[in-house]
C-alpha cells in the first residue's frame, strides 16, 4: 500500500504546480508514494489535477508543458526534475486518455515496436515484445492490421500495448478504459492487476469507474481542487456514502443498497457490501431464511404500441468503402416517447446505426425513415430540425466566440426569424443552466460545460428525437448526473431519446427500452429490465449487466420476482421485508 516510506518506487513530496497562465496552483502540496508492485488509483472531480499529476511523473510537466513547479519527484530512483522525458519514459510508461493521438505506427506491430526501437532494443527482442504486449491486451492476430481501421476500443488497447512493450517499471494510466465496453474494461484491469502481481510493475491509474478498480486497487488517493482530500483503502472510502458524495465520486451500486440498510439500522457501517457476493451474504444473514416481501410491480414505462413511429428501419445494411460490413438486416422502430439505449461491445455497429438516423451515413441496403422522411434521399441539414445528434466530443462542433452565438448558429442555419431565435436561445440557456455563461468564450469553460453547450445548441433546434453518443465520456460523476438529469427532463417533456452508451448503470437508471447490438445486427430489443435480465444473451454480446441487475437476479430464490433497477428501491424492499418479518415475529 501507499505509504511515505523510503522503499517507494514513486515518491512525490510537497509538489506544487501552476500552468504558466494559471493564477492558482493546479497542484497544491501533493505528497504521496507508491511501493513496487502496488496498484494505486487516483480519483477526483474534473479539473482536480489528476492528469497534471500524472504528467509530472515522467517529466512531460514541466519539460514540455511549461509552468511553475516546486517540490520533489522521484521515480524508480531517478529525480524526475533532472532527467529528460525520454530517460524517464524507460521506467515510467504513461498511457494518456486520447488513444487516437498515441498511435504512432501505420500497422499495429509498427506501433507497438515504436517505443522499444527508440531504446535500440534488438530486433528479435522487439518482435517477442510485440507478441507479448498484444496478447496482454487481446490484440494478437492484429499485427498487420492498419491502425486506421481499428475501433475506438481497439485503439485504446493498442495504446496500452505500445507502452507495455517498453517494459516500464511503473505504469501510469489516465482513464485507460474510458471508451471501452464493460468486458473490455474488465479485461484491461485484469491485465493491469496481473502486471502488478506477476511482474511487480507499480501501477498508478486515474479512473472514474469505481466498480472496475474497487476490488483491485491497493490504495486510493482522492484529489480535490489540486490537493489530496482523502487517501487510504478504497473499501473504506466507498463504504462511506458521505465521503463519496462529498468528493463527487460515483458510488458502488450495491453500496447504495447497503447504505440504505445501514440508514434503517439493519447493518453497521462496516458491513456495507461493495460487491454482489458481499451484498448477497449480508442479505442472506438479514433474512435468515425468510422471504422478500414484494410490492406491486411498477407500471410499464414504455410508450404504448399506438404511438407513432418516429424512426422506422427496414432491412438496413451498411458496407463501408473498405468493404467492411458494419450493419446487416437491421429492423427497428423507435416510437415517440421512447428512451432507448443502444448497447453492445465496441465495433458492434451502434454508432454506424445511429449515423443513419440523420443521414450522416446512407444505407447501402434497406431503408431508414425518420419522421416520415426517407433518410437515403435526404441530407443531414434537411433532417437537423427533426433529429438532433450530440457527438461525444463537443470540441468538434464548437467554433463561436460566445455561448450565445454558438447556440444561435444552428437556428440561423434553419432560417428562424430573429425574435423566435432570441426566445429559443433564452429558453435553452436557462434550461441548461448556461444563462450566466452566455457571453463567455466556450473554450474558456470546462469539458462538462462545453458538453452542455453542445447539447444546448442541438436542443435549440427543438428536435423531436435526440441522439446522444456516449454523452458522459470524460465527465466526472457530478457532470454525468447533470447531463443525464437534463436528458431525462427532455424525455419527460416529450423528446424521444436514443442514447449510445457503455455505462450499464446509466442504462438501468434512465432507459425505458434497450437494444443490444452484436456483429452489426440487433440481438435483443425490449424493456430495459427484461433485456438486462437476459444474462445469457448479454454474454453473447460481450455485455456485462449492471451490478444492481446481477444482485436482483441473485435474490430470486428469496422471492424477489422482478428485476429492480433502482438501488434505493431495492434497499427499501429488503429493509421492509426484514423489518416486516421482525415485526410479525
Amino acid at each position, binding site marked *: 500500500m501507499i505509504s511515505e516510506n523510503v522503499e517507494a518506487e514513486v515518491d512525490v513530496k510537497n509538489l506544487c504546480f501552476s500552468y504558466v497562465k494559471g493564477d492558482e496552483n493546479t497542484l497544491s502540496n501533493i505528497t504521496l508514494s507508491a511501493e513496487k508492485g502496488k496498484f494505486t488509483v487516483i480519483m477526483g472531480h474534473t479539473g482536480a489535477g489528476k492528469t497534471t499529476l500524472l504528467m509530472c511523473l515522467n517529466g*512531460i510537466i514541466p519539460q*514540455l*508543458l511549461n509552468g511553475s513547479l516546486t517540490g520533489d519527484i522521484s521515480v524508480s530512483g531517478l529525480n524526475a526534475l533532472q532527467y529528460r522525458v*525520454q*530517460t524517464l*519514459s*524507460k521506467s515510467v*510508461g*504513461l498511457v*494518456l486518455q*486520447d488513444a*487516437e*493521438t498515441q*498511435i*504512432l*505506427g*501505420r*500497422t499495429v*506491430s*509498427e506501433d507497438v*515496436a*515504436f*517505443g522499444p*526501437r*527508440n*531504446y*535500440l*532494443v*534488438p*530486433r528479435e527482442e522487439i*518482435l517477442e515484445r*510485440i507478441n507479448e504486449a498484444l496478447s496482454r491486451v487481446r490484440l494478437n492476430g492484429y*499485427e*498487420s492490421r*492498419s491502425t*486506421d481501421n481499428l475501433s475506438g476500443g481497439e485503439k485504446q488497447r493498442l495504446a496500452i500495448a505500445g*507502452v507495455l512493450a517498453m517494459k516500464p517499471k511503473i505504469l501510469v494510466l489516465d482513464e485507460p478504459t474510458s471508451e471501452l465496453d464493460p468486458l473490455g474494461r474488465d479485461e484491461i484491469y485484469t491485465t493491469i492487476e496481473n502486471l502488478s502481481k506477476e511482474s511487480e510493475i507499480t501501477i498508478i491509474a486515474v479512473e472514474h469507474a469505481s466498480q472496475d478498480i474497487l476490488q483491485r486497487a491497493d490504495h486510493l488517493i482522492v484529489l480535490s481542487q489540486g490537493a489530496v482530500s482523502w487517501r487510504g483503502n478504497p473499501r473504506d472510502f466507498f463504504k462511506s456514502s458521505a465521503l463519496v458524495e462529498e468528493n463527487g465520486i460515483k458510488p458502488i451500486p450495491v453500496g447504495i443498497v447497503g447504505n440504505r440498510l445501514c440508514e434503517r439500522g439493519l447493518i453497521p457501517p462496516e458491513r456495507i457490501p461493495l460487491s454482489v457476493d458481499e451484498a448477497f451474504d449480508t442479505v442472506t444473514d438479514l433474512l435468515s431464511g425468510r422471504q422478500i416481501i414484494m410490492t406491486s410491480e411498477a407500471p410499464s414505462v414504455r410508450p404504448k404500441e399506438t404511438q407513432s413511429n418516429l424512426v422506422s428501419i427496414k432491412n438496413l445494411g451498411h458496407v463501408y*468503402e*473498405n468493404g467492411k460490413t458494419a450493419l446487416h438486416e437491421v429492423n427497428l422502430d423507435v416510437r415517440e416517447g421512447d428512451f432507448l439505449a443502444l448497447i453492445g461491445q465496441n465495433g458492434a455497429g451502434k454508432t454506424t446505426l445511429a449515423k443513419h438516423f440523420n443521414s*450522416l451515413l446512407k444505407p447501402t441496403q434497406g431503408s431508414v425513415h425518420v419522421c416520415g422522411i426517407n433518410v437515403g434521399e435526404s*441530407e*443531414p*441539414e434537411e433532417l*437537423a430540425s427533426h433529429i*438532433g*445528434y450530440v*457527438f461525444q*466530443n463537443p*470540441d*468538434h*462542433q*464548437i*467554433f463561436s466566440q460566445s455561448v450565445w452565438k454558438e447556440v444561435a*448558429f*444552428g437556428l440561423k442555419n*434553419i432560417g428562424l426569424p430573429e425574435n423566435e431565435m432570441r426566445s429559443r436561445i433564452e429558453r435553452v440557456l436557462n434550461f441548461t443552466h448556461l444563462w450566466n455563461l452566455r457571453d463567455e468564450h466556450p*473554450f474558456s469553460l470546462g469539458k462538462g460545460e462545453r458538453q452542455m453547450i453542445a447539447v444546448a*445548441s*442541438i436542443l435549440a*433546434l427543438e428536435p423531436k428525437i435526440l441522439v446522444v453518443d456516449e454523452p458522459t465520456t470524460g465527465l466526472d460523476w457530478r457532470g454525468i448526473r447533470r447531463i443525464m438529469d437534463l436528458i431525462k427532463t427532455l424525455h419527460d417533456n416529450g423528446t424521444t431519446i436514443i442514447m449510445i452508451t457503455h455505462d450499464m448503470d446509466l442504462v438501468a437508471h434512465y432507459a425505458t427500452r434497450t437494444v443490444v447490438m452484436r456483429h452489426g445486427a440487433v440481438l435483443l430489443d425490449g424493456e430495459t429490465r427484461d433485456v438486462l435480465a437476459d444474462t445469457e444473451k448479454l454474454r453473447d454480446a460481450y455485455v456485462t449487466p449492471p451490478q444492481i441487475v446481477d444482485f436482483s437476479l441473485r435474490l430470486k430464490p428469496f422471492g424477489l420476482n422482478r428485476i429492480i433497477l433502482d438501488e434505493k428501491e431495492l434497499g427499501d424492499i429488503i429493509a421492509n421485508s426484514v423489518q416486516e418479518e421482525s415485526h410479525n415475529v
Partner: protein
Amino acid sequence: MFEEKNSATYLHALHVVSKLVVFIAVMVVIFTFSNPMYILAMGLLLFALILPARLPLAGVFTLIKSLLPVFVIIIVMSCFTSQPDRFQTGIGQHVFFTLFRDGRFPATVGGLLIGVTFLIRIVVMVLTTLVFTMTTPIDDIIDFMNLIHAPYELSIVISTAITFIPAMTNKKNLIFQAQRARGTKLKGKGMFGQLMAFTPIMIPLIINSILLAENLSISMLNRGYGASRAMTSMRDRKMTKSDYIVCCGAALVSAVSIYGRIRYKAGVL
C-alpha cells in the same frame, strides 16, 4: 510481419529511395515547365501510374472541389497581374482585354495559363505527397533519415507531420459530421460566401489540430522518441531491380524535361 504490409500494392513495395527519386522528378518537371499542358501531361502520367494501386484518394478530390473558389480567385488574380512582356511566346503575350481604358491591368492569356499552371502544380504536389505518405511506412522514412544522417530535429518534424495526417483526417471527418448534424450548410453564395461557409469547419479544425499536435508530441516523448540518435531497424530493405528501373525512369524524365526546356524552350509561355 513488417514485410506483409509492404507488399500491399506495388507502390508499397518500392524502396523509400525510389519513391523519393520519383518525388523529386515530379517536382523537377512541374517547376521546369510553365505551360500547363506539360504539367497536366505529367499529372496524368502520374495518375495513370497510381490508379492501378487503388489507393483511397476520393478525399483528395473532395478537398480540391471544396477549394475551387480559392482556385478561381488565384486564376483571376494571376490573369490580371501578369504583364504581356513577361512572356516569351505570342500566345502568352496576347491580351484579352484591359480592366481600365488606359491599358492598365491587362488580362493576358499567359497570365491565365500561369494561374492554371499554378493550380495543376498544387494538385500534383498534393497527390504526390499523399501517395508518398500513404505508401511509405514511417519506419522507412526514419530509417532513411538515419541513413543520410539527417539532423534529429528534422526527423522529429517529418515523422510528427506524417503521423499527424491520418489523425487529422479522422478529426476533419468528425468535425464535418458534427457540423452537418446541426444543419450547417457548407455552400455559400458567391466566392466570399463559400469561404465564410467553411468557418464552422475551419475553426474547430485549427483548434483541434493545435491540440492534436501537442498530444502527438507528448505521445512521441512518452514512447522514448529521441532517447538515442537512431532507432532499431526492423527490416533489411534493399533496392530491387524494380527500384533501379523506377529510379532510372524518373532520372530520364527529369533529364529530358530539363534538356527540352533549355535546348528547345519547350513548355515555355
